């Protein structure tokens, strides 16, 4: 074998490897996409060419599946979780990064340690508490539950960033005439923005995908899309085409997100640890 054919072989091997990876990652997505537009009889066939129909999408928005309302619940819950978590986490991260507390690093570690408790352990007490305060089956309950695991991670992600920002800048701002809060807003937050954005994306993904709390704490009104998916398991068996249509709605923001912000996300993660 001469050098050239060897080179060609290596190239071919590379393409084969790429194809396998693409198949593994895009196969399921393609499958869901196809199933969502198949008519019921086609679902169990392996046909690649079929007559696409919008009937599944239409059905999924109707009773009992209610994709519209449930997606709206998901959007509201995720959005509110982010809107409350990020300022809280940023403020806490700043405090943990800049001030010395009696007990030292016990506090930030303690915040993280709450995450070692499995959700199954706290779900029953949580359910009882929410029932007591009449928050069962509300979006508020889900926002609170989501924040319980989003905020600690966000604190740690943002803290790493703020740790790497020299004190000089905010001290300069204070001497230049800003109050401490203003210095944080004008200098620390803009400089930590890649870190805050990274945390935001992370929080978005985990609260969007959250299933367990939503399953237990909601019944009807506040049910999210992710729990709603279960309603496609009917007494007539699993309605795969509806499930696929719903799944499409669930993964859509992720697909959009990965297309536009993935680079930013990895950059944020990298610079946080390297600097």
């Amino acid at each position, binding site marked *: 074998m001469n050098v050239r054919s060897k080179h060609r072989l290596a190239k071919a091997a590379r393409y084969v490897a790429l194809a396998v990876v693409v198949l593994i990652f895009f196969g399921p997505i393609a499958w869901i996409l196809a199933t969502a537009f198949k008519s019921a009889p086609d679902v169990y066939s392996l046909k690649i060419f079929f007559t696409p129909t919008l009937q599944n999408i239409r059905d999924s928005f109707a009773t009992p599946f209610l994709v519209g309302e449930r997606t709206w619940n998901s959007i509201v819950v995720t959005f509110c979780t982010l809107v409350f978590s990020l300022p809280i986490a940023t403020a806490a991260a700043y405090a943990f990064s800049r001030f010395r507390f009696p007990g030292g690093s016990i506090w930030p570690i303690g915040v993280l340690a709450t995450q070692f408790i499995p959700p199954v352990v706290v779900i029953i007490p949580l359910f009882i508490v929410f029932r007591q305060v009449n928050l069962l089956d509300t979006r508020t309950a889900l926002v609170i539950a989501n924040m319980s695991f989003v905020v600690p991670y966000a604190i740690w992600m943002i803290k790493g960033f703020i740790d790497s920002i020299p004190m000089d800048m905010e*001290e*300069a701002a204070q*001497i230049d005439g800003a109050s401490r809060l203003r210095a944080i807003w004008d200098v620390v937050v803009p400089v930590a923005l890649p870190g805050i954005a990274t945390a935001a994306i992370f929080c978005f993904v985990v609260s969007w995908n959250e299933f367990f709390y939503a399953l237990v704490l909601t019944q009807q009104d506040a049910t999210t899309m992710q729990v709603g998916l279960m309603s496609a398991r009917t007494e007539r068996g699993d309605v795969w085409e509806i499930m696929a249509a719903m799944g499409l709605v669930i993964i859509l923001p992720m697909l959009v997100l990965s297309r536009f912000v993935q680079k930013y996300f990895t950059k944020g993660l990298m610079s946080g640890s390297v600097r």
Partner: protein
Amino acid sequence: MASVTLKNVAKRFGHFTALEQLDLSIGDGEFLVLLGPSGCGKTTTMRMVAGLEYPSSGEIRIGDRLVNEVQPKERDVAMVFQNYGLYPHMSVEQNIAYPLKVRGIGKTDRAARVRAAADKVELGPLLARKPRELSGGQRQRVALARAIVRTPQVFLMDEPLSNLDAKLRVTMRAEIKHLQHELGVTTIYVTHDQIEAMTLADRVAVMNEGRIQQLGTPAEIYDTPANLFVAGFIGSPPMNLIPGAVSGGTFKATDVSVTHPDFGADGAGILGIRPEDIEVVDPQVAGIVGSVYAVELTGEANLVTVLTGTSRVIARASRAWDGKIGDKVGLRPDPARIHLFDQQTGLRIEPRRVPGAGNH
């Protein structure tokens, strides 16, 4: 513009005492340099004037106003940081304008004053750039412009030149001196570089271990160091310090015998002579004898290191001096510029008055 007064100021961090009993008063428009090795408390002193640290006890006044626990923004001071402390997400123009912006000064007025400050430090063409697109020297100019864009009561400079290369440092030093003279603003400048201190200061406060060792004009500090620390810290190469003993008006150590009318009381002492105050002569006619240990040509002079007894003594000889390692030589100190220190306390013993000493 205002004076700055520190009275009995102490600063403790937990059990660590950074400063004890500091008294310092800086006149209106004066350029005071705090000089000392790292960890001597000079930066802490400045940060307390800035309001970034609060004193554990004592009084700090800017003008007549007690500012002990006043927020930095209320103190009307401006500071230049060692690492510049620029805002990386803002352009040079926004950086310089920030002090005006937070004080609510209008856009048009702001632009004019930013322009004026930038021109003063020759930053005019760089206003649109971001700090990361600038060189170290340019960044420090931005920091300076940000400090002078409004007229503060006091300028604080925390080792502003130590991140610059040697050549740029000399240029910037002159610029800072000129700027301060032109603006006439009271300035406190922290450095560990004695050349910077000597060249810039109206007065220098030499600090060590949380205390002011000596406060005086650069000439006073140089000519009459109050103690061994100041003597050894100021000057390059440093003052030669030879341990020995005085008896009957003569200082004696191995190979050393120096007589001086001012040497009064007998006892152990340390003789101090600056290299430039020593003449290299024939061994027969000199009070100090030894053999040449090394010869270094600096360009304008020859630094001759001589081994006498157990001490090495450096003398600054003329360029033309020629001698070889191992040669026997004699050293003749200028009798008007001899220093003697107490071996126990390290204090200067001499009838001549020492200005600014006496913090003990």
